[in-house]
């Protein structure tokens, strides 16, 4: 228990420092983009949160498979903790994208395919969370959520194909011809992604610990009820 707490505190400390370093690099190290100006700096948060959000959903997918294969509660806790944290990050992606779009595209929202698919991903995991709140039996809740988490994730590649085949006005940062970024921009982006991933890991661990505490509390309550009756 003591060692676990130590790891948790260390992770909180490291992710906090990494986040501060990333902030410093975004505002003081990365150069000003020539066409878009200062508003381009939101890109480091936008891309990092999108990456972590999708990674979070991948963890949910893996957790779902793990749960169905083993029936162990720890996989279920991992799956939905990751879905919740991933949902926060995808929400951040959507908000930062809209804030960036207003000065650059002249509108907060356009029905551009990649934006649409991000919104669809967001809706998928909102539905996942809603599903979890709507099933009475904890065992069924875990199984249903695992199945839905798997089905939701396997549609992701198809969404990406749809993007490729649909005309897009979204800037292509990563392509077969390499990144349209300067080396300093790449360094900043990588540090941002690392910092966001560390924060994700910290939040995930805290969320998992919270769920274990809930289980312990429920068991204690039952014990209490049994003693009282």
């Amino acid at each position: 228990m003591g060692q676990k707490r130590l790891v948790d505190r260390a992770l909180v400390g490291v992710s906090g420092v990494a986040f501060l370093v990333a902030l410093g690099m975004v505002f003081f190290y990365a150069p000003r983009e020539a066409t878009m100006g200062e508003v381009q700096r939101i890109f480091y948060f936008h891309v990092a949160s999108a990456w972590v959000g999708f990674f979070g959903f991948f963890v949910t997918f893996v957790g779902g498979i793990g749960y169905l294969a083993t029936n162990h509660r720890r996989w279920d806790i991992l799956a939905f903790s990751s879905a919740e944290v991933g949902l926060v990050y995808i929400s951040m992606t959507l908000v930062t994208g809209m804030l960036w779009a207003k000065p650059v595209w002249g509108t907060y929202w356009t029905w551009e395919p990649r934006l649409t698919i991000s919104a669809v991903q967001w809706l998928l995991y909102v539905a996942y969370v809603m599903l979890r709140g709507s099933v009475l039996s904890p065992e069924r809740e875990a199984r249903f959520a695992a199945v839905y988490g798997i089905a939701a994730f396997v549609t992701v590649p198809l969404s990406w194909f749809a993007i490729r085949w649909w005309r897009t006005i979204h800037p292509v940062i990563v392509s077969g011809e390499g990144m349209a970024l300067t080396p300093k921009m790449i360094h900043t982006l990588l540090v941002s992604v690392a910092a966001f991933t560390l924060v994700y890991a910290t939040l995930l661990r805290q969320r998992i610990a919270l769920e274990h505490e809930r289980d312990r509390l429920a068991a204690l309550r039952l014990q209490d009820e049994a003693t009282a009756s």
Partner: protein
Amino acid sequence: MIDVQGLTKSFGPRQALAGVDLRVAPGECVVLCGPNGAGKTTLLRILATLARPTSGTVRIAGLDPAQAGADVRQHIGFLSHRTLLYDDLTAEQNLAFYARMYAIPDASARIDGLLERVGLTARRHDLVRTYSRGMQQRLAVARAVLHRPPLVLLDEPYTGLDPLAADALTALLTDLTGEGCTLLLTSHNLQTDVTLNRRVVVLNRGRIVYDAPHPDAATFPALYRELVQEAGSKTQDARRETQDARRETQEARGKRQESANERVGESADHELRSTQHAAPLQNPKSEIRNPKFLCQVWAIVAKDIAAELHTREIFSAMFVFAVLALLIFSFALDLRGALAQAAAPGVLWATIAFAGTLGLSRSMVREQQTGGIEGLLLAPVDRAAIFFGKALGNLTLMLAVEVVLIPLAMVMFNVGLLRGGVLLTAMLGTLAYAAVGTLLAAIAVNTRAREVLLPVLLLPLLTPLLIAAVKATAALLEGATWAEIGGWGQILVVYNLIIIAVALLTFGYVIEE
């Protein structure tokens, strides 16, 4: 016949069974008593293979349900709280459906005989929903013993029955025991069951606290109350009495075993052999055949179509809803002339998506209402057959609506939708929709917000499919051939393959408890 050792079952932190040991000899009739929440239903559902134990071993006729589920299910008849009958089918159709599920060879004669025996021959062509509670319960007994199972599990079979119906049920159960059938039934009606001179087992808080062959009818109710009230603290007296009763039971079981063995012409210790040699109990009347996969799929589809033909409620609702959606889209978007033609593919697929959600939800609710899925799970049916059967039933319904909807949209939007490519797109899109919709409807139906939740779960998952279907339809209407729409057609095919694969792999987890 039944051998349970150290059985536990937990639902999250709550333990429903806390180490149950129970042996029931062939031909024995056991009444399982206990207060609400004692774990009786959970125990029966585990024995019926409807639920999996958390730990412990279960053997039915020497077979392990986890290893030989389909074989075990052939040996079990289960009468649940719910009748597991389809309200929108007749008595005869219900029994014929289950006869197909169990591959009963002499189905027609068996159904005639059973209907005669439960006194429902005159009402055999009436829909089950027109039956009284007592008639439904009698038909449910017929369903439970249709495949001549050597073991019948009955969960509170007397609930909701008037005295006459209860007497009729008692007569049926007595006949079954007379034929050598093993019965395990749960009940709250202490006086009746005890006077029937049966072995009584009392379950409280997931543990067996009493087990005696023929408890005294006069004193048992008071003893039962004492056991139930004091079992939590496990008083010395109750424990001693239980131990005495168990000893008595062992002796009585030995005697009963001998008589059971005599009945089936066996001289050795039958119970011991049945649990040790993993051989299925030989029921002289049963002719077990392995049901064929495609026959089961077709039986499920035919059952859904027959139920729909009786009510026509899903088709009517979907069709009217689809027409309303077409009208609302045309008002809202002011669709006229070229604009109507350009918007036609999107409006058509949005309409199909909304109407489909309505139909899928109702179709699964119909299955759930009387425990139809449980009935299917009790039969030796492959879970994939249940998925294909339900998905094809839903596909049939959706295609039936589209047969009317597409020509209607053609007239309303003045576009040539009746082309090979467009119809192929409609077919592929609807197939994927039915597949993913069946999976998610099976999930949604078990939630508190079933009708509301289905579209929330389904529509985001359908997005790539709907985009591809709309784009493919639009391209085809502009004169492109199927080969020319390229990627959109591929997305439709790949989506079908991926979703059907996921649904096949996961559907069992969704429908099982």
